[in-house]
């Protein structure tokens, strides 16, 4: 593994290795001394062409906890706003001695572009590209799901949180996960469908027909248009709510749905739908949430909700990815440093 561009590139073994490493990283973050010396002297560049405070801070925290230096590069007010191309920006970063590039871009495929041989020549981590992929989000979701569902007898509500290494070494075989909301515009959904399928889970996408992408029949998942029936008859182990942008409801934003109220009634996770879930089921959301639109306050604040925990796990997942890509110079497939 040289880069992390898409969850589709991950084998089952690689995915489980990342989740296991995440468990170890998460355990270190419970200590008083959270900083580890592992990546001392390495420089990680956060290259963010799209506003994303949460993901950027998560990557920055992860790199700093591993003692790497972090350079934040945001497109606003930079050379990019003066018309610099992605390629020239990348070459500038390479010249500055970046050891890894974390990239968030509005164009699908931007991370793959940077990862081309001869461009930056250091590990590239995709932090979200257009409507394509957001692999670290899917990995943190999978980690959170594995931690909670490893022991099927462990109820989601009440009791202490399972240990981080709960489910260590295992995949998600047979787990049922419903992904609900704006699948069409969601890189989180795409990354999750691929990763969860690799991990052996069953996935059902729940969305209005207008928000289901063309070609979804080739994805390794089922599609449902009826949230309530899916909850009642399929009994998912985890429900992942996607963020829905209000603008998409209006005619000018594409008119994907008549009104926020109607969306909320049909596809929102409210107290009543929450009550249909089995005892052990958990509720995820990548954030930021629209309370009252795709998720009600009761659902967001219920015992089943692992939404705040996801944020913490996000730092641990990113530490794991940085460790696996950067700690060793001997990555399979990489050339020797000197010829």
């Amino acid at each position, binding site marked *: 593994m040289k880069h992390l561009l898409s969850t589709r590139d991950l084998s089952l073994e690689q995915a489980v*290795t990342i989740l*296991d*490493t995440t468990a*170890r*990283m998460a*355990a*270190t973050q419970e*200590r008083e*001394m959270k*900083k*580890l*010396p*592992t990546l001392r002297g390495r420089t990680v560049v956060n290259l963010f062409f799209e506003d994303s405070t949460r993901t950027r801070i998560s990557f920055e925290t992860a790199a700093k906890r*591993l003692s790497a230096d972090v350079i934040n590069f945001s497109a606003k007010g930079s050379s990019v706003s003066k018309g610099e191309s992605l390629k020239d920006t990348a070459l500038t970063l390479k010249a500055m001695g970046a050891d890894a590039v974390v990239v968030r871009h509005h164009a699908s495929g931007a991370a793959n572009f940077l990862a081309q041989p001869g461009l930056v020549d250091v590990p590239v981590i995709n932090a979200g590209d257009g409507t394509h992929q957001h692999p670290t989000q899917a990995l943190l979701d999978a980690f959170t799901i594995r931690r909670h569902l490893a022991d099927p007898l462990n109820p989601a509500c009440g009791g202490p949180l399972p240990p981080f*290494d709960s489910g260590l070494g295992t995949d998600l075989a047979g787990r049922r996960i419903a992904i609900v909301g704006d699948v069409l515009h969601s890189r989180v959904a795409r990354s999750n469908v691929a990763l969860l399928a690799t991990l052996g889970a069953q996935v059902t996408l729940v969305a209005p027909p207008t928000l289901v992408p063309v070609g979804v029949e080739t994805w390794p998942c089922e599609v449902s248009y009826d949230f309530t029936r899916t909850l009642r008859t399929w009994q998912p182990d985890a429900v992942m709510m996607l963020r829905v942008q209000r603008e998409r409801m209006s005619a000018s934003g594409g008119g994907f749905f008549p009104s926020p109220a109607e969306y909320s009634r049909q596809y929102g996770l409210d107290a009543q739908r929450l009550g249909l879930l089995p005892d052990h089921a958990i509720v995820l959301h990548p954030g930021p949430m629209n309370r009252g639109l795709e998720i009600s306050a009761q659902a967001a604040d219920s015992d089943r909700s692992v939404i705040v925990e996801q944020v913490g796990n996000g730092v641990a997942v990113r530490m794991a990815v940085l*460790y*696996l890509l950067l*700690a*060793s*110079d*001997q*990555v*399979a497939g990489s050339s020797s440093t000197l010829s």
Partner: protein
Amino acid sequence: MTSSSSAHGVPDSTPHGVEVLGEADIARAMTRISYEIVERNKGVSDLVVLGIPTRGVFLARRLAARLAAIDPSCDPDAILGVLDVTMYRDDLRHQPPRTIGYTQPPAVGIDGKTVVLVDDVLFSGRTIRAALDAVKDLGRPQAVQLATLVDRGHRQLPIRPDYVGKNLPTSLAERVSVRLVEHDSLDGVYISGGAQ
């Protein structure tokens, strides 16, 4: 890499090479080390035992049990901990990515305690250097001591053990492997490779 060459003088030569310590030898060495620890520290109060994965963890558990046998007021589970040093190593760049193990500080903590680090083989000393850094991040012990089942020499750092099961002069071409019943289904220390 294990040598399967037959060993002279050792009737039950194993695939691990020539046996230099057997089950009884290891048991005696651990018992002696436990008494040395008690003697040096004038008792077992304020002692904690930290095992370095993989096999140091099992040796630490055996030591803790022996310390508890010497002083029944000592709870072997409370003074036992596991210290993974992977993320503190100085050779991470030159090897394929290493799997990270788990660290479990002893229940009683390490602040103000005398920490006895336990490893199976002491060689270059680099693992112990990493362990000292790892201990520092867990707390501030009163003192840190080092117990090792085998000291095979060839130190690259100014590090020395306080308690040694057996000093085993080796050549750099030789390989020392420790087998413990908790992990390998038998107890023994073997030496292989090199000129015999």
